[in-house]
């Protein structure tokens, strides 16, 4: 870790350690709400908010919290921020809150957040933890955007509700149903892996 400069700390979340395509973390929310781009954006922002705030706080208290109770205290920290995000969405964006349903409260068990708190924020300074969290959030949002765009375009022929494919296009209903989520993500991960392999070969 020591050898990494701040820029590398940020960019590793985008590709090298991308939470979705590389670490396979936070699959539940990724798969469940990626049937429309708008849900993907809302979820991405909610997760980023929780991830950044809890990384900051975990990093701040890392010397105070005894080792034995650290996981429990991280969970309480994360749960408080998730409650804030959940109440905020319910108050200001009721339709989105309804569409996301139980998946907003479920951010609390999203492995990305606890994983970063345990693996990174609890061992690094506040600044580094913040940069790591921002990088991871950006990687998560990008992955969600790609996945939800593919699913929305193929599943309903629209993007953000605007029709992009003509009326000739027969929507593939399967893409907005659960099986479409699994298959699309599987293909996207394979694609990311293939690109990585090609890059390595060239070196």
């Amino acid at each position, binding site marked *: 870790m020591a050898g990494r400069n701040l820029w590398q700390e940020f960019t590793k979340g985008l590709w090298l350690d991308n939470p979705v395509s590389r670490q*396979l*973390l936070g*699959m*539940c929310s990724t*798969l*469940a709400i990626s049937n429309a781009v708008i849900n993907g954006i809302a979820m991405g922002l909610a997760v980023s908010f929780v991830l950044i705030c809890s990384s900051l706080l975990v990093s701040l208290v890392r010397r105070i919290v005894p080792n034995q109770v650290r*996981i*429990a205290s991280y*969970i*309480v920290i994360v*749960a*408080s921020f*998730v*409650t804030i995000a*959940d*109440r905020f969405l319910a108050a200001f964006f009721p339709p989105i809150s309804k569409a996301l*349903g*139980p998946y907003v*409260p*479920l951010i*609390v*068990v*999203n*492995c990305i957040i*606890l994983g970063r708190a345990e693996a990174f924020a609890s061992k690094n300074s506040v600044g580094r933890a913040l940069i790591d969290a921002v990088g991871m959030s950006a990687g998560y949002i990008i992955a969600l955007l790609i996945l939800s765009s593919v699913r929305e375009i193929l599943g309903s022929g629209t993007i953000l509700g605007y029709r992009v494919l003509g009326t000739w296009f027969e929507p593939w209903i*399967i893409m907005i*149903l*659960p*099986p*479409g*989520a*699994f*298959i699309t*993500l*599987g*293909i996207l*991960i*394979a*694609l990311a*892996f*293939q690109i990585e*392999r090609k890059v390595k070969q060239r070196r």
Partner: protein
Amino acid sequence: MELFVIFASSILINNFVLYYFLGICPFLGVSKKIDAAFSMGVAVTFVMALTAVVSWAINHWILIPYKLEYLQIVAFILVIASLVQLVEMFIRKTSPPLYQAMGIYLPLITVNCCIMGLALLASLKEYNFPETVVFGVGAGIGFTIAIVLMAAIREELEMADVPETLKGAGIALIVTGIIALAFLGFSGMIK
């Protein structure tokens, strides 16, 4: 009859893994061997049944009477975390081989979305006590079926000639998609 509908639909139609996308992490992580997958399924079912009981009690006896619903997330996650600790200690004492087999995935049940999802969904659907318990057990059995099916397929996949690119997560997710497609067939069963 109502209870049976909830039971059947939580196993087959609204399967936690294949329909609600809950518990994907252990589903992909522990599904390489049938034995380990089965013990994971049993552990999850057990914790789910317990969670259903405890979360219902907390929700209806503490949170709702005192208008503390906004504390639901914090309360549920703490209950689940302590329950999992208990189960872990119990298994370590009674069955060390089982404990070995589950490895690091047992503590991970704490952050397993399907347990938390169960507590949240049951309160969202406003189930009464028997319904919540049946929902919990059914969801656990559904999880077990899905993970054992997946493990069986993956054991065969070891032998198969999978393209280099798709190896690992790629093929696992596509197989899951196909299983989910098959389970979609059940959705006409109960309206």
